[in-house]
């Protein structure tokens, strides 16, 4: 049995005019192995973030379900930590307090000292030592998402759910934080489900990439395997024929294959 199974999930939303329902995506089914990094890529509106929220338990599927280690998950839980596109840090808490909130929740029986040491370790891991007592408003987007990553990794979840985690970070910082994510993932080998619309990011980070057609009524078109050895270095990848082939394949899909009839497009 697969570690995390997305079992024929369909999602409807109430239509904007209040009559009937709008199908976001239909019958999406795939499985993620333990320790695997799977990325879902697709245009805006294909419902990939909705699917991530369903896996997180923050939204309910209209049909189908999500099974983690043989048990259906329907509610949010600490076994599936989310890294949000908009960071979702508590703005009234400092960096340390934001991470501590998660660590304390994961380990209610730990002593104050143990929690503090654990928090420091993860704050250091993302390079935020020295900014511990700053509030998110005083941090750049990149630094905020580092807090988001520290918060998620510090609880050692079974599955990490990354919801376009680098979309709101400027391009130069993005690469640095992607490398950091790669390093942390190499150390922990968490199971990761990420959604993005950045092809390079998907290839750099993933073991497999799931391609979604455009919504509404989006479908899972295919899952491609990324046969590139790790650790991957951005500079070397650019000339790798496999990278070039994969990149062209995905881009062609996004430009042509994902396109729907104009009448159907939302």
């Amino acid at each position, binding site marked *: 049995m697969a570690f995390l199974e997305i079992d024929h999930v369909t999602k409807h939303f109430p239509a904007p005019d209040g009559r009937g329902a709008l199908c976001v995506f239909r019958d999406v089914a795939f499985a993620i192995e333990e320790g695997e990094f799977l990325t879902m890529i697709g245009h805006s509106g294909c419902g990939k973030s909705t699917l991530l929220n369903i896996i*997180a*338990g*923050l939204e309910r599927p209209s049909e189908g379900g999500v099974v983690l280690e043989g048990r259906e998950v329907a*509610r*949010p*839980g*600490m076994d*599936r*930590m*989310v890294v*949000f596109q*908009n960071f*979702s840090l*508590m*703005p*009234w*808490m400092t960096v340390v307090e934001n991470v501590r*909130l*998660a660590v304390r*929740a*994961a380990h209610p029986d730990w002593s104050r000292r143990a929690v503090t040491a654990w928090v420091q370790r993860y704050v250091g891991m993302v390079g935020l030592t020295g900014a511990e007592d700053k*509030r*998110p*408003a005083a941090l750049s987007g990149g630094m905020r998402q580092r807090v988001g990553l520290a918060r998620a990794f510090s*609880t050692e979840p079974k599955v990490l759910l990354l919801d376009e985690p680098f979309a709101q970070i400027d391009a130069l910082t993005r690469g640095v934080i992607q490398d950091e994510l790669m390093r942390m993932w190499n150390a922990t080998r968490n199971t990761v489900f990420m959604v993005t619309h950045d092809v390079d990011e998907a290839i750099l980070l993933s073991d497999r990439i799931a391609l979604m057609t455009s919504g509404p009524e989006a479908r899972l078109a295919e899952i491609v395997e990324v046969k590139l050895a790790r650790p991957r270095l951005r500079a070397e990848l650019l000339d790798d024929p496999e990278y070039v082939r994969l990149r062209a394949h995905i881009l062609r899909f996004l430009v042509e294959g994902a396109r729907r009839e104009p009448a159907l497009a939302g």
Partner: protein
Amino acid sequence: MRRDRVRVLLISLLLGVLFVAGWQATTARQPKGKGLPGPVAVAATAWEMLRHPFYDNGPNDKGIGLQLGASLGRLAAGYVAASVVAVMLGVTFGLSPTLYRAVNPYIQVLKPVSPLAWMPLFLYALKDSGQSAILVIFMSSLWPTLANTAFGVASIKRDYLHVAAILQLSWWRRLVTVILPAAAPAIVAGLRISIGSAWVAIVAAEMLIGGTGIGYFVWNEWNNLALTSVIFAILAIGLIGVLLDAGLGRLSRRLAWSE
């Protein structure tokens, strides 16, 4: 910015001096004991009262400090009770929009009622004027905090609640670490309006119940035709109001956060 502040301060002082001078000019020529008292007479009374703020010569003759203390005591009792109730109800309503919409018509009807209108009911039910006055304060400081808390909690970003849900925080920890801090700026804004309206209401309530308090003092001095005392009491009420507001202003700055 600095120059601006100096300018504001100078204009402010100038207006104050002009007002006092005009007041003195209009009251100086009238015969003694007739018309409104002038600033000099008020200042003399103020000096007299501030020299012995806590004397107690029986029910009708107490120092201004004792009277203000009595009012502040009532304010504290009614305001704290109202704030606790308002925040609890506000959080409940904020988290349950359906419930809020169901009770909102009743709140809308009760909100515009002057807190003093409740006085006869409280007096009849409690048979105690002191407790009735506290309840009037309670009624006067309930609604702004309640409405602001409900609004603040209802507009908490879903993301924060999602994080709380993922971390599976107990309802108590969710309340203390997420909901209350997130809504704190709105709650404190409500508390600030509430303490203002409570301080306004207490003067009128004490005029009705008599006995002690700054409101009773104003009415008593009016009956004695001691207008200098009345004017001084008005100033004292205003100053205490400013201090109460400033205290909550500090609290609001401490709890403020920005995204």
